[in-house]
C-alpha cells in the first residue's frame, strides 16, 4: 500500500475512534509525548493499561462471585480502572467505571453485575481498536513515514 494511502487510512480510523467517543483528547496527549528518546512510549503505556485492566477485571469478577460482597474493595478496584482508562484516553471504559462506582455506592448487586459486563465489553472493544490503530501506525513508521496527528 502506498504511504499516502496508509496515512489516510490511519488518520480516518483514528478520527472515527474519537468521533464515536472510544478515545478522547488524553490519547492525543499520550501520542504527543512520544519522541525519539521514547519511540515506543504509546505502545508501552497502552500495554501497561491492558495488563492492569485484565488483572482488575479478573479481581472484580472474583469479588462479585463471593457470598459476602465487599463493595468497598470493588469500588477501590473500579476507581483504579477508572484512573488508568482516563490516563490513556479510553473514554468509554472510564464512563462505564463511573456508572459502576455509582452502583457500588448504592450497594446495588444487580447493578454491579450489569456494570461489570459493560466495563468488560468496553474494555475488549477499546483493546481491539487500539491494537488495530497502533498496528497501522507502526506500519507507517516502519515504512519511514510520520504518524498523522489529530489536533
Amino acid at each position, binding site marked *: 500500500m502506498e504511504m499516502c494511502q496508509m496515512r489516510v487510512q490511519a488518520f480516518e480510523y483514528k478520527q472515527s475512534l474519537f468521533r464515536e467517543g472510544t478515545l478522547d483528547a488524553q490519547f492525543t*496527549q499520550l501520542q504527543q509525548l512520544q519522541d525519539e528518546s521514547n519511540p515506543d*512510549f504509546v505502545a508501552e503505556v497502552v500495554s501497561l493499561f491492558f495488563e492492569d485492566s485484565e488483572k482488575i477485571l479478573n479481581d472484580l469478577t472474583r469479588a462479585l462471585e463471593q457470598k459476602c460482597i465487599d463493595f468497598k474493595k470493588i469500588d477501590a478496584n473500579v476507581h483504579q480502572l477508572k484512573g488508568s482508562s*482516563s*490516563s490513556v484516553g479510553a473514554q468509554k471504559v472510564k464512563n462505564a467505571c463511573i456508572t459502576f462506582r455509582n452502583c457500588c455506592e448504592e450497594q446495588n448487586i444487580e447493578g454491579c453485575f450489569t456494570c461489570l459486563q459493560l466495563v468488560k465489553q468496553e474494555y475488549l472493544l477499546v483493546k481491539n481498536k487500539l491494537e488495530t490503530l497502533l498496528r497501522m501506525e507502526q506500519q507507517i513508521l516502519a515504512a519511514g513515514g510520520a504518524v498523522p496527528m489529530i489536533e
Partner: protein
Amino acid sequence: MDMDASSLSNGMGVENELHVLAVDDSLIDRRLVEKLLKNSSFKVTTAENGLRALEFLGLGDDQKNNLKTTGSKVNLIITDYCMPGMTGYDLLKKIKESNALKEVPVVIVSSENIPTRINKCLEEGAQQFMLKPLKQSDVKQLRCQLMT
C-alpha cells in the same frame, strides 16, 4: 541552530537541574508524569507510595534518629491524593511537619474535583491542587512557578 528547552537546561549544568519527586500508586500514572516532567527538563524520581517517598526524602522511620539529613534534595514533590495506606494528604502533612522539608513545594493531584478535598490540602500547605490526567501545559506552568 535549534535552541529547545532540553539544550538550554543542559547548558545550565546538572547541579541547576530541578529535581521532582513524583508519588503515585498507579504505574501508568507514574510513567506518564515522569515523561511529562522529563519533557520539561526536570530530573525525576518516582515513588509508588508515601512510605517510599518519605524514605527517599530522608524521613523514613529508620532514619528519624539519624541527625544528619540523609535524604536527597528535591525542588518539588507531586503526589497523587488517593493512595492506599498513606494518602497524598497524609504525606503532605508529614512533609510540612519536617523542618528539613517544609519549604519544599508540594502539589497534590487527583482525578476528582472535590472542593472540600482541595481546601483541606491547600490549608495544610499544598502549593497547588491539580486535576488528573496532567497535561504538558500543567507541567510547564509548574516549571515557570518554580523558576520565579
